[in-house]
């Protein structure tokens, strides 16, 4: 199998250089460009297995680039980079086909782990990860108290397969954690509707509807 090729799109030269260095250090082939148009040019010239895409770019913005990439090069696994921790922007990118995300500031091991994880999938494109894999990532993030990341992965899992209860249950728990009880209730109910036999969602629903209410004891699944 050919050496995996990664395209780095970031307007910051130093980020481009360090990312390139970090990936090349583990034997990947990496190209770096500073804007969207150039990236699309590169993609039309040659195959890339993965793409690290900054959402903030001069000229054509990251999301537009993402749309075009997923439409034209479905094999490329797009990982977005963001310095802004807004979950909404990441969610939108994930909906548009990004498979994972990197939040600044990151360290080489983190970059390598996420990129390798994406490249390891036999499938390319937006569906590189399975529902269960996203579910696993969400659970792992919850364990590390990275609730925003868990939120993103759970959403992505639902995008992959909206007919399973676990991700809805996790989302319910995350909403409850944020004191958004109505949202939590809706998600638990969806989980139970999908699978009436799914225990964690039932337990969570029961607790949510019990008076007096307590947040402690969310069953994540």
């Amino acid at each position, binding site marked *: 199998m050919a050496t995996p090729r990664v395209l780095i799109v970031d307007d910051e030269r130093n980020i481009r250089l*360090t990312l390139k*260095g970090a990936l090349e250090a583990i034997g990947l082939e990496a190209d770096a460009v500073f804007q969207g148009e150039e990236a699309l040019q590169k993609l039309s010239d040659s195959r890339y297995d993965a793409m690290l895409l900054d959402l903030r770019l001069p000229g054509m913005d990251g999301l537009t680039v993402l749309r075009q990439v997923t439409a034209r090069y479905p094999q490329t696994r797009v990982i977005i980079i963001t310095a802004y921790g807004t979950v909404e922007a990441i969610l939108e990118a994930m909906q548009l086909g990004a498979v994972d995300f990197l939040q*600044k*500031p*990151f360290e080489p091991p983190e970059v390598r782990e996420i990129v390798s994880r994406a490249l390891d999938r036999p499938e390319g494109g937006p569906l590189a990860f399975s529902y269960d894999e996203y579910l696993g990532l969400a659970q792992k993030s919850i364990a590390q108290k990275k609730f925003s990341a868990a939120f993103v992965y759970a959403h992505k899992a639902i995008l992959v397969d909206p007919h399973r209860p676990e991700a809805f249950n996790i989302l319910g728990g995350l909403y409850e*954690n944020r004191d958004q009880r109505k949202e939590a209730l809706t998600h638990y109910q969806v989980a139970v509707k999908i699978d009436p036999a799914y225990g964690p969602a039932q337990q969570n629903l029961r607790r949510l509807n019990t008076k*007096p209410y307590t947040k402690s004891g969310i069953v994540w699944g």
Partner: protein
Amino acid sequence: MKTLRAKILLGFGASLFIVALILILGIVLLLRLGRASDAILQENYLSTLAAENMINDIERQDSGLLLVLLNFPELGFKEMRESEVSFLMWLGRAKDNVTITGEQEIVAAIEKNYTLYLQEIQQLHLGSRDDGTRLASRYHDQVLPRFWTVRDACLKLRNLNHEVMFAASKRARRIAEQAVWFISIIGTLTILGGISFSVMLAQRLSRPVTEINQAVASLAQGNYGVQVPVQGRDELALLATAFNSMANKLKHFHELDIDQILAEKRKSDAIIRSVDDGLVVVDEKLIITNMNPKAAAIFHVEAAASLGKHILEVVRDETIYRSLQGAIATGQEPHYEADENILTVSQGEVVQHYQTAILPIHSRAGVIPGAVLVLRDVTRLKELDRLKSEFVMTASHELRTPLTSIGMSVSMLKESAAAKLSEQERQLLDICHEEVLRLKALVDDLLELSKIEAGRLELALEPVAPAFLGQQAWMVIKTQAEAKGIAVSLEVPENLPEVLVDPHKIVWVLVNLLANAVRSTPAGGHIHLRGAQLGPKVHLTVQDNGPGIPWDMQSRIFDKFVRLDQGETPGSGLGLAISKEIVRAHRGVIWLESEPGQGSAFTFTLPLADQSKEIETDGNTTSIDRG
């Protein structure tokens, strides 16, 4: 001076004088009456008596003469002699008692005729022997007419005196009648005069008293312009003058007072109107008694129309209402949690924020039921605060990109170039790496803090044993402390009840406090991590025996970017600020007890898991609109 006493004396004196006058008059009249009857006795009775006796005597003399003529000479002469002596004696008395007009002539005629009567008896020569017939005819011709004349004169005298007596008696009766009339009239007049004088005096006495009485009543009702008329110069007039003077002075004081009060009121009105803050003054029933234009503008009402209305009709805010009630009831300013006293007023697109303060009204005498509500426009401050938070957030985000580049570069250098570098160069690289990590931590702290401040702190609450929290934190800090030669003793009892917390966050707080303690405590020092249950809360305390915290820093120690210039590796200056926010998110409080030179102790409270339900319900129903 005509005093009241003099008047009374004069009044009664006059009455007494008149009574005395009447008395004297009566006596005079009585004396006159007495004299009149005396006069009758003196003047007329003696004359009448003399006349009667003279008539009697001359008739006896005549009888004696007749007896002589009838030849009874002895008896006749004796009778004649006796009667002549008696007649002369009575005549003498009558002569002595000539009192009335005409009496003198009658007495003189009696005397003359009686003398002639005696001469004619002499000429009869009764001793001689004449014959009886001649004697009888001589008696008849000469003596008898003379006898008649004397006797008639005597009768005339008697009748004259009788007439005079009768007239005198009549006159006396008239005098008595006059006296009766006179006394009656004078007496009646005097009585009438006395009565009218008494009435006048009583009136004169009582009128000024009544007037003063009415004036005092009027004065008591606040009519300070009242005056009583001053009449005369007596004691009552003096009293009236004194009263008028007093009323004038009172009026003066009153006007002075009113003027002063009005001036003060105008002054305070002007102050209330002119201040930039909204001011609403309420009385004890929370009725608005004053309101300045700014406050009226805040609540979109007319200031004048709002006076007399209940506070809730104008300010529809439950918190302000309760705080006002509390302030009036206790006389204390209400205590607010942070940001609890911010009132947000939206008018269309414009949102204004006001910081409220409530001041009970005090006076020297104590607390006047009432309070002042002050509304300070903090919209600009809030806006600045928001801009600042936004700036911090943006800056933190922007810092992430260069930090990433540096971090990546240093890490990769350490990976690839370490072998080629000298020990010193490797150390330099390590320093870079360490500082990058610190910078990342700082940026993370800043972001975390802005998130917490924006109310976006996510807590994963669960019941945890306090001992477990202490253990976790202790494990993190142990190595660091030991390296510095500081003993950290964990003294959180295992049997403390569970607390409902986000353990990750609380451990973070404990580690932060312990790290601060380690940083500030010199080698050989001692740090205690203690736990205790106090009421519905568990208290966790981190105590060190370091240099303590200067007094001037103690109040600001939980503020952002406040750092003590001690220890070789200063922190970000955000640790305590974040700790405070985390503890607050757990509905706890954190405080510092420190004496410079004696070390310091940070304590915070955590809620018991038993009460978690109650607390959680609260947490979900309380709106976070305020602040």
